[in-house]
């Protein structure tokens, strides 16, 4: 299969996934409750007011008609308008929040990569030494620590006790980003570090590394040019998949650090039965993850000649 056919097939698969997600979220969100139960207080929930609200929200039409309208609008890129105050189109609101979440996610990934790669490589090259032991200890601790607890502990220690960082919000730019990025990125750090270490250990025992050594290449060149590149292939795959984890994890982190991102928006919208916002958020997330997976698949095919050869 040539590249473009492969790409088209994967794209269709991705679109199908998004359609399934959109349909599911449409119906499931309506099973979750009625918006009048959150938009109107109990004492305001008189029949005529409920009726007026349902009409204004388009909920007075049959469900199948609502679904058809939803799909039609979706095809035109219209995700509807949030029912909560402010009146922003759902997609605009998501755009603002997604930028905030991506900033946090990117900072988390940078933090994770910046520590995980050198630690993983060094741990692999110094197997059995104190640094290897330490890195594995950190890995266990990091994976066993709930991110919300870690976030709270960091707030109390670094923000309240030491006063180095703000306790929440995003008003102080880079300073505001550090604690949530660390709390978010720690789990990824640990996973990447373990993957890098095991990948490096495996690669360092392979024939081509022995050949490189036999050719008299320096250890630095062998590790830097040959071993690391090879060991990082699964890390690249994992980074793509970690997007979903980062966004999922950001829901908790954004709540703890009062970070105005898409995770908070989703939680808030679910609690308020804001159907357009829930639908738009989930669909955008699903589309993002599908897109990243598509890009990972494609890039993997471009990076690894064996996959191309296998296709042939």
């Amino acid at each position, binding site marked *: 299969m040539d590249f473009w056919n492969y790409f088209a097939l994967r794209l269709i698969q991705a679109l199908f996934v998004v359609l399934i997600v959109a349909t599911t979220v449409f119906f499931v969100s309506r099973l979750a409750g009625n918006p009048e*139960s*959150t938009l109107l207080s*109990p004492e305001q929930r008189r029949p005529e007011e409920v009726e007026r609200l349902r009409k204004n929200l388009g909920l007075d039409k049959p469900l199948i008609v609502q679904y058809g309208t939803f799909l039609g609008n979706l095809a035109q890129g219209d995700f509807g308008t949030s*029912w909560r105050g402010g009146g*922003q189109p759902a997609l605009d609101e998501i755009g603002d929040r997604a930028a905030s979440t991506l900033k946090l996610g990117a900072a988390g990934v940078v933090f994770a990569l910046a520590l995980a790669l050198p630690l993983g490589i060094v741990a692999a090259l110094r197997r059995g030494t104190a640094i290897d032991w330490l890195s594995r200890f950190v890995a266990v601790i990091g994976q066993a620590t709930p991110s919300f607890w870690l976030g*709270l502990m960091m707030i109390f220690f670094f923000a309240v006790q030491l006063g180095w960082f703000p306790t929440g919000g995003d008003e102080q730019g880079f300073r505001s980003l550090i604690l949530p990025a660390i709390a978010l990125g720690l789990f990824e750090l640990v996973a990447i570090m373990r993957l890098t270490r095991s990948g490096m250990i495996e690669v360092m025992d392979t024939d081509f590394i022995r050949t490189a050594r036999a050719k008299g290449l320096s250890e630095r060149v062998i590790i830097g040019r040959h071993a690391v590149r090879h060991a990082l292939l699964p890390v690249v795959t994992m980074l793509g998949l970690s997007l979903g984890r980062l966004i999922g994890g950001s829901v908790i982190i954004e709540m*703890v*650090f009062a970070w105005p991102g898409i995770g908070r928006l989703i939680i808030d919208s679910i609690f308020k039965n804001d159907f357009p916002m829930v639908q738009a958020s989930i669909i955008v997330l699903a589309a993002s993850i599908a897109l990243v997976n598509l890009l990972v698949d494609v890039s993997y095919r471009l990076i690894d000649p064996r996959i191309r050869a296998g296709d042939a």
Partner: protein
Amino acid sequence: MSKRNYWQRMRRSRMSRRSLLRASARAGVGASGLALVGCGDDDDDAQPSAAQAQEQQQQQQQAMQQEQVQQQQQQATQQEQAQQQAQQQAEAVEQQEQVAVAETPGESEEWSEPWPLDEVDLDATITVVVPSDAGGLDQMRTGSNANLYSHGAVFSAAMEWDPAEGAPIANLAAPEWIDPVTVRASVVPAQFHDGSILTAHDLVFSYERMAGQAAYHQGGETTDHPGGWTPGNVGRSSANWVRNEAVDDRTWSFELPAPDAGFFVVNLTGTGEVVIMSQADTEARGDLAMDTSPMGTGPFRFVSHEDDTDFVYERFEDHFLPADHPVVVPRYAHHKHQRVVVRPEIQSRLAGIEAGEIDVVPGLGPNNVEPYLDDPDFTVQFQPAVGQTVQVIYPNLYPETMPDGSPNPFLDFRVRQAANHAINRQALIDNLLLGQGHYSLFTFSGVYGYPTAEQRAEVEYNYDPELAKQLMAEAGYADGFEVPLYYTTDWGGAFMSDMALAVAQDLAAVGIRTQPEVALVSDYFSDAYVVGGPNRPVGLYWMWANVVRDIGSMWDCCVGPESFFTKLSGEGVIDPALHELYLAQRTELDSTRRQEMIAELMLEHARQAWFIFLVEAPDAVLTRADVNWPKGGRTGFMWGGNAYGIQRRKAT
């Protein structure tokens, strides 16, 4: 702080309220009688603007008196009664305070009263933290009407509710009751934030808009708001009038179809308050602008709002009431900048105040503030239940039978009595509420006419599990029965789960075995749970009271015949005489008699054990030590509607 100091603070809070009552009584002499509960005039010497308006009003009244001699005579009698009543109440409040002083010798009122202006940093920035952001800022729009701090900062109401007198008092308009259904109000010379002058047309417009009747957007049908516009506060009676018109630019006339003592209570307090908007500005800028950059006559101008992050306000320097005006109504703010930040996680809110980023954390449970009681850097104030912290349980009385065909046990008075005797309220108070709180009735304790402690004592079910078992046996349930216990942990504070568990254990001890059914609050008040009353199985449904000061709000939503909780007339199971009493108090013009009727209604409801009464828990507000939030205004407590009163002490 020691335990002793903690109790001293509680005493100060009580004294504060008494002082507030006195101030309110002084400020509202005459105006107190303006309510439907007894008419009078406003000779409030503490409100110069209102007094000026009153002069105009008296002139108009003289003209009317020539045409309506009989009404004048009736009014004069009512005024005299109201003045006497107000004087008596002022004297009573004075006496209360003297008693309070005697109870707490040596205690100062510095915390609970506003600090003297020369000690206050009027240029301060105050940062308050809230858990959520409703998104929009239009107080009248469904979906946006929950941002109380914004509404309290930007807007004011035509009148405000005086919690001491249970009556409306002058604010943007000085009301005069012409007869039991007609109010005529003189509009004070206040300015909107854009410099335009408030007129009676703005009042008419605002009430129409609140009721979904404003012409410029056909009640919301032709709104420019992309999210639609549905009126958010069409409560029990906000649209219930036969006349709402501007006699001239300075005179507003309003007529009800029938005497309704609760009308202005609902429309002047709590989230249902009708705020006054500029007709010209609203019609020119449209609904979306109202939702994103509101403009009113309130103590603060709107500056900015970043969704789920913060709201920023700056003091309105041309506010029509001076800084030394009593805090009972919005006046010149005592801090220059107000920032309301949004933090959903409670530990993050507390970390913010500990780190000095935040000055005030409202809406906390006793368990949250316990660590701060001894800390000199912070001050804790308790107040009655301004959150949903009045805890009662409704036993579903709609179904005649259980799922297995046996009779609904809660239709038997003895079972309801047993359930009430089963609850160890003191243990709940001691172990979950830091010793604070008291026996609950079906409204919060700030409701006008709420029974006194002595009256309540008469109907309170003491903790007596043996008696409860005996009653269960007499009702034929010696072996007990099983029912679901429905509740949500989203309301009622962080101790909700613990309280539900404790109550379930108490009930199980006398044979009422419950299976917990926990729901999100968004689901809880839907057809799937409490609103679906007639279709719901027999079970126990946890309920909380709102903070509207009129009994009608809770009666209509949750107790009376049209409510989602109980059926009370027709083939209903609750004594119809209760509803007749409720209707009668609505038209009772004598305030003393009305209070008696409301108290009797609540006491009789308790006597018949229609609910399982639990506890009314306190609501705690945590502030930094150099910050003072005097209680007052609107509800009489500390809440979003009166954050304009927050002060910061000048640095020394």
